[in-house]
């Protein structure tokens, strides 16, 4: 596991869903166990090329997400590796019981892919804005929750998603991600990445907020505050050791998530910090409110998800040190 972080974080030239579909198709070429399912959203999830290339291994379940998760579980019981796709809202809160019983409790080998996390749902608005998907699913024992950050990371972890066994939820931004990693970076599901070293405070981020956390660290450096930045792309199982070390060595933590701060990354980190090395924590994320419609930039500002917000939270956390 070694990462190379870019200097600037430009939008990638292609959508993350293209990286995803191309990567899955490449793996499916040599692994006939891989099958894909969708719930009448393949034009959104970007799975049309997979459907065209492997029509027998692509199952459009129609607008019936609960059935799709069950079909995926049944397929896995015959040795297939199913990837079931829909919006993150439907992939979590609508199918919570199916993910729980048919997949996780039954210890089957299922991948649920929920797209358009948090404010990236933008113009689909509050009804379609998954700000609770990870929280809903995090209470399911043994489930693995991952949120890949950019194309380099997604491409690198896809083979692990095939070789490992279990019930996975992959929280996938479908549009153009901000490029954080340079090619050649390697990752391990279950391990966080330290993107920047620092001793005054640790910014623990995921998804679209990773690049914002890195920008915030730069702002903080200008104020003489030396911030560590961690990408905690696996929310469960959580990297307890890395969090504990960050708490011990920096004495203050800011969590940054494109998600409700209740039950999500902030909660998960606070649980570990409280149990290991209690230090002040500030949480960036939606403050237990519903999402709303609008451009992504507007929503990022509306919910205080930008670098300046993270830097301000860090200043507050540092001030609370005893």
């Amino acid at each position, binding site marked *: 596991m070694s990462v190379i972080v870019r200097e600037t974080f430009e939008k990638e030239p292609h959508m993350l869903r293209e990286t995803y579909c191309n990567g899955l198709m490449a793996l499916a070429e040599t692994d006939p166990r891989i*099958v894909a399912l969708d719930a009448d959203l393949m034009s959104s999830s970007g799975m049309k090329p997979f459907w065209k290339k492997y029509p*027998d*291994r692509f*199952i459009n*379940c*129609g607008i*019936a997400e*609960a*059935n*799709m*998760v*069950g*079909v*995926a*579980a*049944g*397929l*896995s*019981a*015959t*040795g*297939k590796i*199913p990837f079931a796709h829909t919006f993150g809202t439907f992939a979590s809160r609508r199918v919570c*019981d*199916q993910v*729980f*019983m*048919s997949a996780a*409790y*039954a*210890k089957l080998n299922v991948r649920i892919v929920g797209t358009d996390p948090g404010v990236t749902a933008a113009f689909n608005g509050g009804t379609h804005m998954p700000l609770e998907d990870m929280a809903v699913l995090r209470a399911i024992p043994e489930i693995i929750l991952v949120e890949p950050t950019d194309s380099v990371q997604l491409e690198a972890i896809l083979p692990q998603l095939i070789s490992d066994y279990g019930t996975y939820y992959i929280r996938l931004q479908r549009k153009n991600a901000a490029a954080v990693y340079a090619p050649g970076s390697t990752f391990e599901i279950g391990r966080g990445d330290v993107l920047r070293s620092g001793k005054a405070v640790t910014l623990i981020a995921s998804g679209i907020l990773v690049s914002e956390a890195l920008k915030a660290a730069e702002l903080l450096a200008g104020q003489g505050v030396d911030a560590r930045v961690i990408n905690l792309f696996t929310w469960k199982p959580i990297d307890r050791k890395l969090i504990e070390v960050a708490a011990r060595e920096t004495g203050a933590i800011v969590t940054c998530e494109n998600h409700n701060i209740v039950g999500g990354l902030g909660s998960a980190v606070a649980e570990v910090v409280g149990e290991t090395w209690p230090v002040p924590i500030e949480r960036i994320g939606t403050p237990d409110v519903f999402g709303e419609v609008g451009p992504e930039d507007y929503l990022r500002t509306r919910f205080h998800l930008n670098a300046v917000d993270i830097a301000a939270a860090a200043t507050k956390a540092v001030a609370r040190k005893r």
Partner: protein
Amino acid sequence: MGKVEDLRLFAEEIRVATLKEFAALGFGHVGGAMSVVETLAALYGGAMRIDPKKPDWAERDRLVVSKGHAGPAVYATLALKGYFPEAELFTLNKPGTNLPSHCDRTKTVGIDMTTGSLGQGMSTACGLALGQKLDGNGARTYLIIGDGECDEGQIWEGALFAPHYKLDNLIAFCDKNGQQLDGYVKNVLDTGDLAAKFAAFGWFTQTVDGHDPSAVDAAIQTAAAHTGGPSMIVLNTVKGHGCTFAEGKEFNHHIAFTKEEMTAALISAGAILSAARAAAKA
């Protein structure tokens, strides 16, 4: 000795073994276990392609008991077929048991799918059947749902899915015992003419006496010969059938009983079993 008598004998053996499982506890999902006994006898008495010595055989037929509370009847069947020792039946629902109230594929040898949250078995059975078709191994998936369970929307999502994907290796049963937890189905939420409903969804549908194991067996053979889509066999049954303290009661989904009641039930079911044994030997 003929097949008709053999299946009847196996059914009565399952019924008595299931009652004995419950006897040790004093309570249980008696009603819905009793109504599927003859179907389990037909399935495990010859219809299914299985090998109890190889419970993980990849090309075996699978059974999803979506009305997972009928688990005790399935466990009795599996034990009688030799999947695990019959003595284990007495551990039902006891601490650390491999035999929980609802079917659990990770705990019980021979259980193909975890069920209990109603409606979900419909979808997992569709997935199993689809996987078997992708493998082209000729294996089938059998599914048992209940008429009360048909309240669940997920049943109808799967009812649309299976004909669309031409799952002719999926043979389902609807245990139409007319009762659910809070009373008669027609009073709680009437599921109506289920044979007509599944036929309208595109299923090849038959209706048989669910307490005649040979009739069930014959319906399975007919369903197996059908190609191009899934089959639904509606079983006319009586909840609690063959258990004297449960049959005919409105609230027999989960029921507590006295030792005396269970003794009387075992004497009655035991007499029917003896007669079936004599008929099978004749």
